[in-house]
């Protein structure tokens, strides 16, 4: 089945140690998003790629970076994780096309813990 896959499902890292989360999709969608979701809170958009164009949200800390080497893959890099970065990180995709609107398809997330 076509889907959005996030690896790993659980990631533990040390305070200040860089970490990379990955997302792949078989939907051939042109937009990929990264969200941060803390317990009982709304998913918060960090940034998204429209094809190769990177769009950062104004309040996303510089500590968070992203790469999209091709249509299928997108990575979230946290350069120096702090305790406040412990959260579920969700990847989503969508197809943007003229005259239509498509919902977002989510992966099951990576739960990041910081020691």
């Amino acid at each position, binding site marked *: 089945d076509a889907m*959005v896959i*996030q690896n790993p499902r659980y990631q533990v890292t040390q305070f200040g140690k860089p970490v990379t989360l990955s997302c792949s999709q078989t939907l051939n969608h042109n*937009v990929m*998003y990264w969200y941060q979701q803390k317990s*009982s*809170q*709304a*998913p*918060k*958009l960090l940034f*998204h790629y*429209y094809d190769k164009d990177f*769009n950062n949200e104004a309040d996303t800390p510089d500590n968070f970076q992203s790469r999209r080497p091709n249509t299928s893959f997108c990575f979230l890099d946290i350069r120096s994780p702090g305790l406040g970065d412990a959260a579920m990180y*969700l990847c*989503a995709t*969508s197809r*943007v096309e003229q005259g239509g*609107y*498509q*919902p*977002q*398809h*989510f*992966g*099951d*997330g990576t*739960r990041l813990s910081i020691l």
Partner: protein
Amino acid sequence: SQKIEQNSEALNIQEGKTATLTCNYTNYSPAYLQWYRQDPGRGPVFLLLIRENEKEKRKERLKVTFDTTLKQSLFHITASQPADSATYLCALHLRGGGATNKLIFGTGTLLAVQP
């Protein structure tokens, strides 16, 4: 300030009854409103989308209403089942939000259907 509010308290209902969840927003002008379901430890799953010029949308046991004057959407699940127990998120796609389907999510309402 801009806000999306959903019932912060969990909604407990008896199997077979209709569940009604509320989404209120302030200082937004959404072009579309969507509802997603999120199970514990999983990513959100798209359920329904309603446009600003639509009053009501139905899909099987689900019904969504959208009142842009009241700035409110109601989400109904008829003949509820224990399997409907989950967190339900509303999300706004803003007019002029660009061509990338960016969404702003509410914090969600936890629905518990008792057998």
